[in-house]
Every structure is written in structure tokens, then in C-alpha cells.
């Protein structure tokens, strides 16, 4: 497929360090026209960093950057854009207060000769583009009013139809439902056949194998292998990624899994007839001590709102909450924390202080317990050090700024802040999203430990694997209502998807 043709993009011996921590060490990478190139690797392996170099986000690096046979250097994302390179970043970057059409044409709105925006033309063309992608929305609605999955699709559509000849997609499918993923793949194959080059980063190895022509594996800032997708398998890729024997580490969850009989744990949380606008309708359930309750549903099913209500960040319209039998109305997140509820949100940006050292990130939720008025930095560091060792956070230096850690390790820090004084109820939103196999396993083990200690744990996820790997009992949420409960029975990915 790529033999004999010279690549349109070629990188040689790329090295990039962030404040002394090397993210890339002498990486070679080549991209050919009309090729879909999959990238796999654990968190912190250097995939995203390499892609950000290509997209002009990181202008400083060492090594050769050759585009169309000429050595080039981008000074900014604007340069990359002008050279026909478009990237969809892992984190959603849209303007929620603008209309769908404005988002699709962000940065190049059609104007008439006087420089006025041609609204009607913009709306029509945006509508046509999105329709090609199978998205049927009114281009004049406010983007922020749409479900997150749809917002992500629209962001992807913007880049796909921007005319870019090199398109980079960093974890594009994490917020998408299966039919949406199908549509994306169809479109990607069409674009490839028209000659566009696409880089596709994902933790879903099945997706990579299905969609890409070539796969490159990264480990620890180095390129480990490059192979045609047809010549490899999931097990081989996982082995290359983590450097130790593979297949057993990740179940595919296609076979039936038996959920255990409910234990005799006491009811920690009782939710009754919870409703919020159009997003939640009469949601009732219980969470018991020593049990992991999984709540599964597609993006936009109301999970996020539910988690916010449990932690006092949103107020329900109707319905009641009771913790340990006492009815609660949380006026603030602080009130929820004091009642013994803890939440780890789905976005790293929302749960961590990137410019502060690791130990401050860990101690933030327990300062009230360890210091009345004056801080006790020695104790703080000692507590943090213990958590860092227990959760195997790397590098194990509590004084390091959090931003220097890789994503998976940051996520462990977010969890660590709740573990010194375990809460009664721990709510985890997408605890393993964007994580590699090794880190996922670490999180699974941490959660099982906490369950053994008698915590009530709620795991909310849009990934069936996450729920299946963690939960003892599973609720399926669909358009804001509980449509199915799986308890003490056989469950599989198929059954979950069917119910949702």
C-alpha cells in the first residue's frame, strides 16, 4: 500500500522534552497519501505529543520535519492549518455559545464582498456537510444545547470537511455511540479513498484494526513497531504496547459474565424519583456498602447530571436523596463532601490543579481534617507520598507539578485525594476513559480494594467494558430514565448495548 511511494509527511529522530521529562526519544514517523495510520500506545507513550508537533501545537523540538519533500518548521497551529493539517484534540474544543453553523465554519465563515458574514449560506452549507456525515440538526441551534457526543461529532465534522489533506484524530470515538462510530468510519474510508491522509489515535484496538491500513506502536517515548493492520492482531499489539504478555489483561466482554448475588451490605445511598428538567426522569436506585453499582448509558443519557446532583453541584427539580438513611439536600459540594460523598469527574481539567504540585492535589480534600488553621506541609507530603506509593503513581515525586505527569497518572492523583479518609460513597465518572490497559487494570484493582473496605461505589460510564469490568450490579440509563437493571444474572456487552 505504501511501498514505492514517497511519504507526504516524514519525521526523523524527533525528540521532545517537557521540563526535563522526555516525552519523545528519537522517533521516526512517515505518513503516505491516502492512508489511515493508526497509533497505539499506553498513556504517556508519546502519541499525542508527536501529533501535537505535527499540528504545530509544540513548535519547539529537535529532529527533521519534512512535508512534501521539503524540510519545514511550523511556528504555530496556524502554519500547520495553512499547510493543510487539521487535528481533533482529545478534549472537546468547541464554542458552546455559538451556533452549530458557526462552529462548523469557525475561523473561515463565508463573507460577502463587504466582509459581512453570509448567515444563510453558512447555515445551508453547514447543514449539507453535517448531513453528509449523517448528522441531522438545525445548524442554527446553539451548540451547547446538544448532547456531548453530538458536539464531538460536529467538531470532527469541522475538521474532516475543512479541506485538510492530513487529518489527525486523537481519541475521537470515546464519547460516541456505536452507530456514530460506524458513521465516522465510513466517512474516514471515503476520505482516504479520495486521497486524504488520516492519523487515528485510539485505545480501542479493535477500532484501530478495523479502520486503519497501518499501525504504529509507541512505548515510553519510542516507536516500537510499525506494521500493516492486516498482518497483526489485538494480542500482538497489546504485547508490543506494554512489553509484557497480553491477551489476558483485557477481556473483550463478548461472552456472558455472571453478576454476583447482592451482598448483605447496608444501604448507603437511596435515590428516589430524582428528576431534572428533560435530562433525568424519576430515577430511583440504591447504592450499598461493599458493592460497585455500574450505571451505563450512551453519552447524553443523563449520567453526568446524575453524578453532579449526587455531589451537590446541581440541584434536582424533584425527588430525594438520602445518605445512610438521612435525607439530604446538598447546598454545595462542600456539604456533599462532609456527608461522605466523593466524586471524581470525567475530565482531568475539571478535577486537578495542573500548576500545583502533586501533594497539594492530593491533600486538597482532606485539609479540613489535618489542619484546623495552620497548614501542616510535612504531614501533607507524607500522606501524599503514601498514596503515591500505594497507587504506583509515576514519577513518585510529590513535589512535582501535576502537569508534568502523564494522563493516566494524573487520573490516579484525582482518585488519590479521596482515599486517605475514605468516603461513604465514591462516585466515579468514566474512571478509565482514555487509559491504557495497564493503568486500567490498576484502577480496577484500586476500586476492588475500596469495595472490600466497605465503600459504596458508583461507576458511571459510556464504555460497556468499564462498567462490566467493575460493577457488581448494573443500571442502564436511557434518555434520563433507568430502563433496565442487571443483578445476579448473566450480562455481556451485547446485552448492555441492546438495553441502552
Amino acid at each position, binding site marked *: 500500500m505504501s511501498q514505492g511511494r514517497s511519504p507526504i509527511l516524514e519525521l526523523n529522530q524527533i525528540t521532545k522534552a517537557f521540563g526535563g521529562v522526555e516525552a519523545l526519544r528519537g522517533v521516526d514517523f512517515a505518513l503516505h497519501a491516502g492512508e489511515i495510520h493508526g497509533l497505539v500506545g499506553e498513556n504517556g507513550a508519546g502519541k499525542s505529543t508527536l501529533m501535537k508537533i505535527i499540528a504545530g501545537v509544540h513548535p519547539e523540538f529537535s529532529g527533521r520535519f519534512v512535508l512534501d519533500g521539503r524540510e519545514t518548521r511550523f511556528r504555530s497551529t496556524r502554519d500547520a492549518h495553512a499547510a493543510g493539517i487539521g487535528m481533533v484534540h482529545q478534549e472537546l474544543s468547541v464554542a458552546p455559545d455559538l451556533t452549530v453553523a458557526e462552529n462548523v465554519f469557525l475561523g473561515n465563515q463565508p463573507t460577502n464582498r463587504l466582509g459581512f458574514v453570509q448567515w444563510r449560506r453558512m447555515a445551508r452549507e453547514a447543514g449539507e456537510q453535517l448531513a453528509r456525515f449523517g448528522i441531522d440538526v438545525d445548524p442554527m441551534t446553539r451548540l451547547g444545547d446538544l448532547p456531548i457526543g453530538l458536539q464531538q461529532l460536529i467538531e470532527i465534522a469541522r475538521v474532516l470537511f475543512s479541506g485538510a489533506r492530513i487529518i489527525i484524530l486523537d481519541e475521537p470515538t470515546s464519547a460516541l455511540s456505536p452507530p456514530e462510530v460506524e458513521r465516522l468510519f465510513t466517512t474516514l474510508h471515503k476520505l482516504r479513498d479520495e486521497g486524504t491522509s488520516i492519523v487515528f489515535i485510539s485505545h480501542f484496538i479493535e477500532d484501530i484494526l478495523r479502520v486503519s491500513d497501518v499501525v504504529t506502536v509507541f512505548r515510553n517515548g519510542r516507536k516500537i513497531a510499525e506494521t500493516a493492520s492486516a498482518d497483526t492482531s489485538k494480542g500482538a499489539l497489546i504485547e508490543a504496547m506494554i*512489553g509484557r504478555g497480553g491477551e489476558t489483561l483485557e477481556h473483550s466482554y463478548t461472552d456472558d459474565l455472571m453478576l454476583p448475588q447482592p451482598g448483605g451490605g447496608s444501604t448507603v445511598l437511596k435515590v428516589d424519583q430524582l428528576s431534572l428538567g428533560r435530562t433525568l426522569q424519576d430515577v430511583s436506585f440504591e447504592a450499598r456498602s461493599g458493592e460497585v453499582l455500574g450505571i451505563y448509558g450512551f453519552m447524553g443519557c443523563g449520567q453526568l447530571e446524575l453524578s453532579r446532583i449526587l455531589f451537590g453541584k446541581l440541584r434536582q427539580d424533584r425527588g430525594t436523596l438520602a445518605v445512610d438513611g438521612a435525607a439530604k439536600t446538598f447546598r454545595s459540594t462542600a456539604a456533599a463532601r462532609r456527608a461522605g460523598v466523593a466524586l471524581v469527574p470525567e475530565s482531568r481539567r475539571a478535577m486537578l490543579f495542573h500548576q500545583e504540585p502533586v501533594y497539594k492535589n492530593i491533600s486538597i480534600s482532606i485539609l479540613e481534617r489535618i489542619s484546623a488553621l495552620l497548614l501542616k506541609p510535612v504531614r501533607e507530603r507524607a500522606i501524599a507520598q503514601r498514596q503515591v506509593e500505594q497507587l504506583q503513581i509515576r514519577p513518585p515525586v510529590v513535589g512535582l507539578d501535576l502537569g508534568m505527569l502523564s494522563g493516566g497518572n494524573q487520573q490516579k492523583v484525582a482518585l488519590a485525594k479521596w482515599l486517605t479518609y475514605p468516603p461513604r460513597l465514591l462516585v466515579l465518572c468514566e474512571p478509565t476513559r482514555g487509559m491504557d490497559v495497564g493503568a486500567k487494570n490498576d484502577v480496577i484493582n484500586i476500586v476492588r480494594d475500596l469495595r472490600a473496605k466497605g465503600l459504596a461505589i458508583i461507576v458511571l460510564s459510556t464504555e460497556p467494558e468499564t462498567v462490566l469490568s467493575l460493577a457488581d450490579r448494573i443500571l442502564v440509563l436511557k434518555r434520563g430514565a433507568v430502563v433496565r437493571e442487571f443483578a445476579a444474572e448473566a450480562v455481556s456487552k451485547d446485552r448492555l448495548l441492546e438495553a441502552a
Partner: protein
Amino acid sequence: MASSDSATSPAADHKRPRGLAPFLRSQMRNIAPFLTLIFLSAFFAIASPSFATIDNVGNILTQVSVTGIIAVGLTFVILCAEIDLSIASIANVTGIAVAYFTLQESYVNIANVPMPGIVAILLALALCALLGLVNALGLTMIGIPSFIMTLAMMQIAAGVSALLVRGQIAYKVPDLITTLGSGSIGGIPWIVIVAALMLLGGHLVLTYTRFGRYVYMVGGNREAAEFAGLNVKLIFGSVMVISAVCSGIGGMLGVAHFGSAQQNEFDTYLLDSIAAVVVGGTSLFGGRGGIGNTIVGLFVLGVLNNGLDHVNIDSFLKILIRGLILLAALIINVYAQRLREQAAE
């Protein structure tokens, strides 16, 4: 993954960015204002023989004292990534209030309400705390952005001032205030001592208390603070009250220092205080900086204002020069933030 990471790179490698250049870049926020201060001091010392004298250092200290007292509270607010535009007006109304509750000479034509000195001081403090509380409630309960809320408070406080003095001038304030504002002990003006103590107090609170840590964390990432279960509204509210009370103290001592209480007396202190905090390198985006930065900023402004009087320069040009220095500081402030974000990526 954890194990493979640690195998290839010993922990020592990760301690800090290596080399002097990255360190200096990450510390630019603190270094640039300090270099500015040294540069300005050296420049004026060479340009004017009367600048670098013990007497003049005393002058500078006295001149920055009122700004310094006000800037303590403002530092808290800016660390939270908020702003308080009502500081000068609250200083003014508190200064006027303490005079209003003090017996004035018979030729002062103000319908005032004389009280014992200590009561007058407590009433004035209660007034500024109340105004700060109104700011706090507007910000947290109603959700008005601090910029707009304190803009309204600026007018409200100016309005209360106007109603109290009705265009007249009051002169007398309680003895304690007179001493602290214009007296001195062992040759050191009390006002300098008060400013130094308040700056020190502010520094201790920000650095060594739980509340201080919360201020930095909320300023660094408000959403994350909320998800960590902090009472973010309580922290925002507290800093607004602290700011108002610091302004009020500055206002009372300022009135004693100037020897009179009248309308619009503190107008220049709004920009001076904001300038001192920002020139010193405290981030306008919150979470970075502190009282140490504010002190350097105060001295930069103090040396600049004082030094320009010592050299032969068009007094109208002074205003332009001050503006340019402030602009330069803002550029450095934003630039330092960007460098830091890059380093943390």
C-alpha cells in the same frame, strides 16, 4: 506501565526542570519585577543625588503605606482571579465615616454624630465590612461578575461619602487613628509599621493557613476546587470582605495622614493598588503570586513616583511614564503566565 517507566528513568531525573534557563523562565513572574525595581533605583540614584538618602527612603516608605494597606486585601482578590474596583471608594467612605462619628471643630459645617473614639472606629470598620459583605453576596449568591458588582459598589460607597460630608471637609478623627496615621515612634512613622504588619499578616495567612491554600487553589482552577468539595462561594465571599476591611483601614489611616476627610480623596488609590499587585507579578488569571510580589510592586511604584519628583522632568510626562510602566508590567504578567503554562503542559 508504571514499572517500565521507573525502570528506565530514576526518580531523581524528574525532580525539577534541569538547567538554569528553564528555572529562570518559570520564575520570570518573580524576577522581572525585582529587576525592574533594581533598575529604577539605580537609575534614580545616578540621576539625582537627593534620591538615595536615608530620609528619602523614609519618604518612599511613608508614601506607599496607604496603598500597601489597601493592596493586602486586593492581593487576596486577584489571587482568586477576581477584581475589586470599589477599594478606593470604600477607603474613602470609611475615612469619612470615622470623622463623621468624631466631634469636629465648630466651623466644620457637617451634621455629624459624635461618639467616643473607639465606637467611631468600630462603626467605621463595621461599615466597610458591611460594604464588603454586599460585594460578597452579589458575587456569590446572585452571581454578578466581580468587575460589575464592585463597579456598582464604587458608586454606592461614593454616594454614601457624598451624603455624609455634603461637599464639606472634616478634620478630626479619633486620637488612635491620628496617632497611627500621622504619628511616629522612634522616628519610624506608625503608618509604615501598620502597613508592614498588615503585609506580614497577609503573607502569613496566604502561606501558612488552610484558608490561604484555598485561595490559591480556587484561583488556580475554580472548577477543580469545587469538585474537590471546597466551599468556593465562601472563599470568594471572604476575600471580598477582607479586601473591603483592608481598604477601610487604609482609608481611616489615610484621612489621618492627609489631615482631612473629603469626597474623592482616594481616587488615585484604585489604580495604584491594582498596579502595585499586578506590577509585582501576581497573576491576573489567579493562583500565582502573593504578598511578596505585592511588596516589590509597591516599591516599584513608590520609587517611580518619588524618583520622578527628584529628577527634572515635566510633571505632565510623569503620568504618561507611569502608564507605560504599567503596560510593560501587564505584558510581562501575561507572558509569564504563558511560559508557565507551556512548562506545565
